[in-house]
C-alpha cells in the first residue's frame, strides 16, 4: 500500500502504465474507430512512463511491501522497455493496416506486456518475477498471432506458446527448489543466505533451472529453437518487440536475481555454464545466419548471437559486466528495432518482400531507407563509431577483467563471422549484387511517415550513443556500486 507520497512518485511509471491500460481499454470498448486513436494514446503513455522513469532514476527505494524495487538500473530498464515499445507503436501505426491486423487490441496487449516487463525488472521476490513473466508472455503469445487469418502467424503463436510454457515449467521448478532450500521467495533473503546455500546442490540446481527458463526468453542456445520460426511467422514489428524489449526483460530478471549473487566477487559459480552458452549462442547464431535467405530469419539468428555477446557480461560476473549488458541492451534496442522497422516498411502486403533478394538495389529505389539500414547493419556488426560497437566493447572489457580473455577472443571471432551476413545486405543494396534487377510489382515501397519517423529516431540514438557512450555507461555504472 502507499505509505507516503514519495512512494507514489517512485512507482509513477507503473501507475502511468496501469492507468493507461484502463484508459485504453475504455477507448477500445467505447470509441468507434479505436484503431486510429489508440496508437497515439499508447505512444503518449509509453513516452510519459519513459520520462518519469528517467526523472526518478536517482530515487532508489523498495516499494509494495518489499516486492518491487524502483530507481537505479530498474528505471533504466523501464526506460528501455517503454521507449522501445513507443517506437514499436509508432512503427505499427501504418504497418498493421498493411499486415491485415488493424486491431486496437494490439496496443492494449503491448501496454500490458510492458507492465509485465516492468514487474520483472523491479522484482524483489521470485513470485513477482514469475507474475511479470507470465503477464508479458501471455501478451506475447497473443501478439505473435495477432493476425488470426494468417496460418503462419497462428503457427508461430502456437509454437511460441507451447515452447514458452515448457520453459516456464523449468522456471517454476527452479523457483520451487530455491524456495525449498532457502525457505523464502524474497530475493534479499535468499541472497543473505547465499553463503550457506552455495554448496547446496539443490539450490544450485534451482538457479540453473531458473537460468534455463530465462535462456528461452533471451533466445540463447540451446533454447533458441522457437526464435526463427516465431520471428518469421509473426509480424515484423512484433518480432522487433520480441527481440528487443522481450530480450531486455529476460535479462533484467536474470540481473535482479543473479545480480545480488555477485555481491561477493568470485562467487560466480555458474561461470562455466554461462560461458558455454555464450560461446554456443554466438557461434551458432552467426554461422546459421549466413545460410538464411529470409531477412527476418537472418535477424532472428543474429538475435541469438547477440544474446551470446550479452551473456559474456553475465559470465564475467562483475558489475562491469552487468553495466555492459545494460548498455548493450540499450544500443541493441535501437539498432535492432531500426532494422526490423525498415523490414516492416519494405514488407509488402501478404508478407512479400521479406527475402534478401528484395533488398537488391534498394539504394537506388529508396536511398534513405538503404542508408539507414546500412547504418543499422554496421552497428549490429559492431563497427565503430556506431552504438553496437561500444556495447561489445564494454562486455569484452568485463570479460578480460574477469580473466575470461578466451571468451572475448571467441566473441570477436564470431563478430567477424557475423560481419559477413550483415555486409551481405549492404552489398545487395548498394553494389547491385545478385546481378538481377527485380521487377515484381509488389516491390513498390509505400510511404509511411510514422514508420519512417520511428526508424529515424532509432538511427539518431544509434549515432548519438556512438558519439557519447560515456554518459550512459556512467549513469548505469553509478547505480552498480
Amino acid at each position, binding site marked *: 500500500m502507499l505509505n507516503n507520497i514519495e512512494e507514489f512518485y517512485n512507482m509513477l511509471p507503473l501507475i502511468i502504465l496501469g492507468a493507461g491500460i484502463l484508459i485504453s481499454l475504455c477507448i477500445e470498448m467505447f470509441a468507434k474507430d479505436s484503431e486510429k486513436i489508440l496508437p497515439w494514446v499508447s505512444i503518449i503513455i509509453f513516452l510519459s512512463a519513459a520520462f518519469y522513469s528517467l526523472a526518478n532514476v536517482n530515487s532508489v527505494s523498495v516499494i509494495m511491501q518489499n516486492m518491487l524495487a524502483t530507481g537505479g538500473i530498474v528505471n533504466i530498464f523501464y526506460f528501455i522497455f517503454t521507449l522501445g515499445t513507443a517506437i514499436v507503436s509508432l512503427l505499427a501505426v501504418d504497418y498493421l493496416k498493411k499486415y491485415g491486423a488493424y486491431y486496437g487490441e494490439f496496443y492494449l496487449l503491448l501496454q500490458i506486456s510492458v507492465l509485465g516487463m516492468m514487474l520483472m525488472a523491479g522484482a524483489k521476490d521470485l513470485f513477482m518475477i514469475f507474475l511479470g513473466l507470465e503477464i508479458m508472455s501471455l501478451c506475447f503469445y497473443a501478439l505473435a498471432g495477432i493476425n488470426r487469418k494468417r496460418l503462419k502467424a497462428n503457427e508461430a503463436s502456437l509454437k511460441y506458446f507451447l515452447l514458452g510454457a515448457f520453459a516456464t515449467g523449468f522456471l517454476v521448478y527452479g523457483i520451487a527448489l530455491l524456495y525449498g532450500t532457502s525457505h523464502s521467495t524474497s530475493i534479499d533473503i535468499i541472497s543473505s543466505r547465499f553463503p550457506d546455500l552455495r554448496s547446496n546442490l539443490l539450490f544450485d540446481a534451482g538457479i540453473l533451472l531458473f537460468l534455463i527458463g530465462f535462456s528461452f526468453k533471451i533466445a540463447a542456445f540451446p533454447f533458441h529453437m522457437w526464435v526463427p520460426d516465431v520471428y518469421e511467422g509473426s509480424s515484423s514489428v512484433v518480432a522487433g518487440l520480441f527481440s528487443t524489449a522481450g530480450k531486455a526483460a529476460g535479462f533484467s530478471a536474470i540481473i535482479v536475481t543473479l545480480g545480488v549473487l555477485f555481491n561477493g566477487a568470485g562467487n560466480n559459480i555458474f561461470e562455466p555454464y554461462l560461458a558455454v552458452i555464450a560461446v554456443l549462442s554466438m557461434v551458432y547464431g552467426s554461422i546459421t545466419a549466413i545460410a538464411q535467405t529470409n531477412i527476418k530469419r537472418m535477424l532472428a539468428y543474429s538475435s541469438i548471437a547477440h544474446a551470446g555477446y550479452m551473456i559474456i557480461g553475465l559470465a564475467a560476473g562483475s558489475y562491469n559486466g552487468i553495466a555492459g549488458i545494460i548498455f548493450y541492451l540499450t544500443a541493441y534496442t535501437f539498432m535492432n528495432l531500426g532494422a526490423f522497422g525498415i523490414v516492416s516498411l519494405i514488407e509488402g502486403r501478404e508478407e512479400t518482400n521479406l527475402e534478401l533478394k528484395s533488398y537488391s538495389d534498394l539504394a537506388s529505389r529508396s536511398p534513405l531507407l538503404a542508408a539507414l539500414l546500412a547504418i543499422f547493419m554496421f552497428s549490429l556488426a559492431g*563497427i*565503430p563509431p556506431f552504438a553496437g560497437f561500444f556495447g561489445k*566493447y564494454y562486455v569484452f572489457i568485463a570479460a*578480460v577483467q574477469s*580473466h575470461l580473455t578466451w571468451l572475448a577472443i571467441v566473441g570477436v571471432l564470431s*563478430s567477424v563471422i557475423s560481419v559477413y551476413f550483415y555486409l551481405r545486405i549492404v*552489398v545487395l543494396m*548498394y553494389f547491385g549484387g545478385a546481378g538481377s534487377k527485380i521487377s515484381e510489382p509488389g516491390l513498390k515501397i509505400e510511404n509511411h511517415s510514422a514508420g519512417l519517423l520511428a526508424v529515424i529516431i532509432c538511427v539518431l540514438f544509434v549515432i548519438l550513443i556512438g558519439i557519447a557512450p*560515456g554518459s550512459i555507461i556512467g549513469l548505469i555504472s553509478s547505480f552498480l556500486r
Partner: protein
Amino acid sequence: MENNNLISYLLLIPLAGGILLLFVEKSKESLIRYLGFIFSIIAFVISLFIYIAYDINKAGFQLIDKFTWIENLHISYHVGIDGISLLLILLTTFLTPLTLLSSWKAITKKVKEFTFFMLMLEVGMLGVFVSLDMFLFYVFWEAMLIPMYFIIGIWGGDQRIYASVKFFLYTMFGSLLMLVAIIWLAVYASSSLGHFSTDLIELYGIGPVVQFEIQRWMFLAFALSFAIKVPLFPLHTWLPDAHVQAPTAGSVILAGVLLKMGTYGLLRFCLPLFPQSAVYFAPYISILAVIGIIYGALVAMVQKDMKKLVAYSSVAHLGFVVLGIFALTQESIQGAVIQMVNHGLSTGALFLLVGILYERTHTREISEYGGIAKVVPVFAVFLMIASLSSMGLPGLNGFVGEFLILLGAFESPVLNSWWYTVFAASGVIFAAVYLLWMYQRVIFGEVKNPKMNSLTDMNKREILILSSIFIFIFWIGVYPGTFLNVSAKSTETIIQQVIGGAHVGEEHKLTIEKTGKDILFLE
C-alpha cells in the same frame, strides 16, 4: 608545449565538408566536385600550418589536444603528432585533393556519395595518424573501413563485391584480435595506474613491463592486425583484388595511405609497447618481409594486367618498409619512414597513370598496348619518371628510402646477418626488371593495336596532378634532408624506447622471478 587545436581543425574540416555535402542536391555534380576539392585543399593548407607549427628539434608528441570522452573508462579524445605522423598527415592531405581531381571525369555515377566517402575516408586516415589514445585509434581504424568498402564496392570493377568483402573481412579479423589485446593491456594497466587506461603515453610505460610470455601474444595480436594492413607476406592476398577492383582514386588512397597505416601501427604501437617481443620477433618478421620483397617482385613480373603489376609491386615495396622497421636501427627506420612517403608518391603516380590509360581505352592488359610513345609522348615521359622513381633510381625518391633501409639492415645488431640485405637488394633489381619490361611493352615498339592510334594525350588537369607529385619525387630524391629531419627525432625516440624498454623488461622479469609472483595472469 603550446596547446592549439590545429589537429582538431584538420579532422573537422573534411568531416564538416562531408556533412555539408549531404545537404547539396544530388544533381549539382560539379558543385559537389568543387566543394569536395575545396575542403580537401583546406585540409592540406591546415596540414601545412601544422608543419610550420611543429618543432622538428623536439622529441615527443606535439600540438596535443585532449579532452575526456568516456569518463569512467578514462578514455579521452587525445590527439597529437610526432615527426612520423606529420609526414603521413602531409601525404594524406596531399593525395586526397589529387585523387578527387583525378576522378573528375572517371567517376560519373553517384558523384555525391563518392565525394562524401572520400572525405570520410580522409577523416578516418588522419584520425589514425593523430590518435594518442588506443581506443580512439581503434575507432578511426575501423570506421575507415566503411568508406573504403563502399568506394571499392560501388565504383569498382567487375569483381568488386568479392574484393570489397574480402578486404573488409580480412582487415576486421586482424583488428578485432588487436581490440582484445588493447582491452587486455588497458585492464593490465589498471593494476599499476589504478584505473583502466587506453592512453598511449601512459601505456608506453606499462607495455614493456608486461611479462614476456604474455607480451609475446599481445605483440602478435597487434602485429597480425598491422601485417594484414601492410600487407606482409603471406597475408597479402586481399591486396591484388582490392587494388585491381577499386577505382583509380581508391587504388591511389589504398596504396598511398591505407597501407601506411599498417607500417605506422608497427612503428607507433608494436615497437614501443612491446620492445622485448619486437626484438624477439624481428628476425622472423624480417624474413617474411624479405620473402615479400622477392615474391612481390616475381609475381609482378608475370602479370598481364598493369594495375595488378603495380599492386604486387606494393607488396614488394612495403616489404622494404617492414624490413626497415624491424632492422631496428635508426638509419633503417628513417629509411622506412621516408620509404612510406615514397611509395605513396610513386605508386600513387603509377596508379594514376594506369587509370589515365584505362579511362581512354578501358583495358589494362599490357598486350593490348605497344608503341604508344608516338601517340602520347607526354604520357610516355610521365610513366618513365614514375617507373624510375618506383624502382629506386638514384636522384629520385625511391633510392633514398631503399638505400637507407638496406644500409640499416646490413649493420643491424638485431638481425645480425647480411643475408637479409643481399636478398632484399635483389628485389631492387627485380623491380627494375618488371617495371622496365612493362614500360617497354606498353610504350615502345610499333603500334599493334589500331585502336591505340586514336589515343589522346594527357590533358592539363592530369598533367597538373602528376606534376605536383613529381615535384616531391624530385625533391626527396635530390634533397631528402627536408623530410628526413622531420622524422629524425621521432625515430630516435622509438629506438630509445625499444632499447630502454627491452632493458626495463629484462629487469622487471628478473624481479618477478625473484619474488616469484606476477600481478596478473592470462588465462
